[in-house]
């Protein structure tokens, strides 16, 4: 009985443990974010020979160049420049985009929902198909289904996503005409439809505009399936490996000794245990899809952050590139940290330690 007695002392010890783990978490979050800003500062201000030209392009008039030079604080020492850069970045000020003449943050705010919608749908597709496939492969290890899952995974790890996207367009858009052309909506709807959240599928459904919903679906389904395939490759492989590990545990033998059906042992016990690390995998795959959006959005003319970054790259619009990098980097870091937290919440073993 000793393990559950004496709660008073353990209670305060637990509070200290929780505080210190929160403290550790904050240190990691802050240093990682500072690291991201330091690297982007280095990229934007230190590597280019003349950062002003990198921001404005080489056709800017001399007086604008001079003014920008002062605005960017390039006459100041580097450390002071970094301080100003930090201050601006933390308040969401990434400067103005040369290409769109908007503040970079405004552009990003407009593009972020498109990217999020795509990545979310992709992860959804990847998890819903990938987890059961991985479980099946583990349970029927060495069977045909295991081989198929393995090959699906290997190809997913090896194929260039933009190339598969192009081939997908050739087949499903040009030849079969199952999906709509690369864009978010047909031109007709671009002007009649007013999004609220920026997630078109959600907005259209909420407003009851089912023709818009269907059109948005025809546009998103190919790029989302493509991203879904990549997330599936990763998720099914990891699920298989976690499940194989769980299925060798003693509690599985005990569950069999209790007379449980294999189905119950697999789905209610082994998968429930594997679910704890799976959360991290799915979160990482989501973060990976955000990153993969750069290439996918370019192929599918999807007006998200990825396309924004590549368009800006081609116009040497450094403010926009760095702003986009910082935003995607921040989301990436946040997802990483959140998945870590979620792991702790989901696993009862870590709760009381």
């Amino acid at each position: 009985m000793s393990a559950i007695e004496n709660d008073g002392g353990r209670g305060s010890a637990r509070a200290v443990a929780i505080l210190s783990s929160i403290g550790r978490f904050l240190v990691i979050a802050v240093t990682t974010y500072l690291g991201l800003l330091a690297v982007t500062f280095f990229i934007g201000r230190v590597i280019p020979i003349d950062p002003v030209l990198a921001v404005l392009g080489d056709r800017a008039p001399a007086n604008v160049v001079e003014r920008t030079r002062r605005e960017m604080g390039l006459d100041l020492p580097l450390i002071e420049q970094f301080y100003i850069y930090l201050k601006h970045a933390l308040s969401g000020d990434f400067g103005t985009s040369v290409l769109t003449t908007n503040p970079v943050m405004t552009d990003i705010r407009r593009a972020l929902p498109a990217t999020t919608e795509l990545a979310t749908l992709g992860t959804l597709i990847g998890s819903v198909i990938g987890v059961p496939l991985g479980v099946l492969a583990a349970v029927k290890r060495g069977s045909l289904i295991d081989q198929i899952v393995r090959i699906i995974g290997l190809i997913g790890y090896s194929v260039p996503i933009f190339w598969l996207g192009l081939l997908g367009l050739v087949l499903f858009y040009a030849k079969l005409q199952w999906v709509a052309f690369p864009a978010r909506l047909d031109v007709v709807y671009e002007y009649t439809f007013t999004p609220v959240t920026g997630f078109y599928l959600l907005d259209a459904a909420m407003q009851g505009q089912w023709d818009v919903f269907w059109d948005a679906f025809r546009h998103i389904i190919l790029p989302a399936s493509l991203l879904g395939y990549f997330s599936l490759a990763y998720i099914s492989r990891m699920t298989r490996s976690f499940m194989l590990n769980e299925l060798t545990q003693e509690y599985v033998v005990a569950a069999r000794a209790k007379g449980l059906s294999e189905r119950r042992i697999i789905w209610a016990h082994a998968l429930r245990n594997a679910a704890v690390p799976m959360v991290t995998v799915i979160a990482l795959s989501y973060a990976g899809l955000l990153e993969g959006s750069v290439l996918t959005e370019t192929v599918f003319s999807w007006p998200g952050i990825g396309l924004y970054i590549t368009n800006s790259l081609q116009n040497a619009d450094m403010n926009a590139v760095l702003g986009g990098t910082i935003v995607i980097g921040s989301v990436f870091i946040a997802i990483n940290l959140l998945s870590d937290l979620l792991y702790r919440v989901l696993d009862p073993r870590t709760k009381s330690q």
Partner: protein
Amino acid sequence: MSVEAVQSRREWLLSERPASRTQARLGRAYVTWRRFTANRLAFVGLLIIIALLLVAALAGVLAPYSPTIGDLKNARLLAPSAEHWFGTDDLGRDIYSRILYGSRWTLYVVILVAIIAAPIGLLVGTVAGYAGGWTDAILMRITDIFLAFPKLILALAFVAALGPGIENAVLAIAITSWPPYARIARAETLTVRNSDYIKAVQLMGASPFRIVLRHIMPLCISSLIVRVTLDMAGIILTAAGLGFLGLGAQPPLPEWGTMIASGRRFVLDQWWVAGAPGFAILIVSLGFNLLGDGLRDALDPRSGDQ
């Protein structure tokens, strides 16, 4: 050689009581090799990589046409045929020849990234692991920070600042891919740091520099090789992605990602222009993935299912 001779050589290799160090080492290599070849897919991977090396070396002999000069007048955007196996591109160049030459650029990128990133990771990891304390804490924090970044996006930003080009793409990929190597090297270092033979070397008065360089680094090499092989496919895909976005190799270099980018404009009508180089990327990355998987399984039987 007679059957018995083969049999006895096998027994000599597999002997449980090797008479010499060489015999033990050869025996272990033999077992590893057997485990590796027992995995048929890994063997296919090895064959693909050997084929890649051969093609890269012999591209000049194998390619029927020039990779950079095409027949603009008569041979634009031809469909695959006996004359042009994979068709021709918009400048009338033979795609098959360009893909053969492109293998050189793939190897160029992969090898350069590996010889830049792996030593950085090895150095950071072994120093952090051996020094411990604050050095370790700071180096590992930096490593973790880099690990938490989106690699492709960061590589993009680097190339954007450095300017497009295959050398800069290599540099950007190398800068973003060393952290996992540092983690591995550190983990290996920690396992040997307190072992008796390292203590013995310390007692003999070897400098920390010498211990890390001569006694710790060599131990980290084999797990590092596996990891680098597994990463090769990712490096190829990132390089191709940069090429596709116009940031990697510049035309007219026959780099596969760049070839896909230039084929993109007519992909709906002449799909083979973008199709063939993508397929080449797929095959080569698949080869590296299969090889890496097989190497890992052969060197570490425990992780066979990971």
